[in-house]
């Protein structure tokens, strides 16, 4: 049911976009105004969320590591899992951001029939890791590829990405490897939520909606490239117009393009309000991005209230004469 509502929401968005794409008077609104608004909301929302998170107090190191802490010299330290240097932290964060290290350690739990009744069994579960990795990397490469619409002249590096991605040279226009990977990965990520009962139980509309929205974006893009073809030159004129801040509106782009564009704009607007903010949030994981030097360095709680202290030395300075008169021993004459 939750998946159904999300599906319905995406369908409504697609219908809105089809209406916008098929009525020529709305093209200016859907082709130029909404993308600008979406971009501004995305950037603004993203900054707002990050600043808001940045204001949360992080008083102490919270090491939840699975590596040996730096200890006696003859005990080998896990320098990346339990880093005591900035370099170690950078490597740990990079492996987290680029390779999804934590997800790689994902395990599954099962109750099995053993000899003496049910037994709890743990095993490795790499499918989610593999699916996420394929999804995120394909998405990144697809986004980078799309820069060809926004840049003129197109940098050589971008052309190389393009030619590597289409190196299979299947069909015309050539099929992109990332397109296939992306569709496969997102289908897997969706089916996982629908088919595994435990995951289905904890899935919310906020989990299904972005998946379906991104699926819609991918499908509309693939339709536009391979089936219901749009005029690429007009698309680039529109995109470049947006990027040069002198928007022009080519008249004859197909309605399917507006579906693609509108869904992307929806994703942009939705992004800062949703779980998709893990894109920025992962860099702020307190258990991952701090040097594990809890005991090596003295950490003082940054918002400790300033307590006025009166040390014994100061006390003695203040009352020395009186103490001497009363015969109380003093440390300093």
């Amino acid at each position, binding site marked *: 049911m939750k998946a159904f509502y999300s599906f319905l929401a995406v369908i409504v968005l697609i219908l809105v976009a089809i209406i916008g794409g098929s009525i020529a008077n709305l093209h200016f609104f859907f082709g130029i105004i909404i993308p600008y608004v979406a*971009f501004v909301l995305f*950037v603004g929302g*993203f*900054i707002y969320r*990050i*600043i808001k998170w*940045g*204001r*949360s*107090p*992080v008083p102490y190191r919270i090491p939840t590591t699975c590596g040996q802490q730096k200890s006696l010299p003859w005990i080998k330290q896990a320098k990346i899992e339990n880093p005591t240097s900035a370099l170690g932290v950078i490597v740990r964060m990079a492996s987290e951001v680029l390779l999804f290290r934590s997800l790689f350690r994902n395990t599954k739990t099962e109750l099995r029939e053993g000899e003496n009744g049910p037994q709890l069994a743990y095993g490795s579960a790499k499918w989610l890791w593999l699916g996420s990795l394929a999804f995120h990397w394909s998405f990144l490469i697809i986004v980078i590829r799309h*820069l*060809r619409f*926004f*840049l*003129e*002249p*197109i940098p050589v590096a*971008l*052309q190389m990405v*393009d*030619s590597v991605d289409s190196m299979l*040279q299947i069909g*015309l*226009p050539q099929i992109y490897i990332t397109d296939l990977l992306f569709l496969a990965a997102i289908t897997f990520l969706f089916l996982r939520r629908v088919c595994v009962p435990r995951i289905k139980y904890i899935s919310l509309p906020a989990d299904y909606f972005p998946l379906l929205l991104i699926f819609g974006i991918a499908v509309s893009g693939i339709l536009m490239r391979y089936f219901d*073809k*749009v*005029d*690429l*030159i*007009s698309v*680039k*004129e529109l995109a*470049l*117009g947006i*990027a*040069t*801040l*002198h928007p*022009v*509106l*080519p*008249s*004859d782009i197909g309605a399917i393009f507006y579906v693609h564009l509108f869904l992307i704009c929806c994703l942009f607007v939705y992004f800062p309000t949703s779980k998709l903010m893990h894109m*920025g949030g992962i*860099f*702020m994981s307190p258990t991952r991005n701090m040097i594990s030097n809890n005991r090596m360095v003295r950490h003082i709680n*940054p918002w400790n209230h300033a307590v006025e202290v009166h040390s014994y030395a100061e006390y003695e300075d203040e009352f020395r004469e009186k103490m001497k008169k009363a015969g109380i021993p003093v440390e300093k004459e």
Partner: protein
Amino acid sequence: MYKGGRIIASLVVFVAILAFPFFYNLGKANAGPVINVPTGSQCVEPVAYMRANHMQLLNQWRDEYVRQGKTVYVNSQGKSFNINIDTCLQCHYSNSSTTSATAVSHPAVSTTGASNPAVNTTEASNSVVNPSDQFCVTCHNYASVEPTCWSCHNLPEGANQ
């Protein structure tokens, strides 16, 4: 803000990456590709079809000519064309020495929008497209699409890839 300096610096980098296309294109005109389009005559198939499917048509021609030995293509309106790259070059390529009326440049951008180089055949100006940029090159460079034609075929004289 705790470690606010780093967070704000990261955000600045992030926004700079997002705004990269805006900076990259700063001050540049949104000039579309310029190609030779003859006035008044139709390509092998209607414009919309050609724009979407020219690559498939070329593949089809290749297969028919090389594998099936057909040398004539009959289009959807019953008109016949020689299956030959010269059929394309007749209209879409002109050597700079032969300044003909068929070579027409079309500024792809006008402030009124609604401009497309391949469709904009009515307003003929007499400027000739630089032969090295003609034919596939301008549009394909503009859209970053690399045709595989030239891995086997010779380019028309004077053209660059």
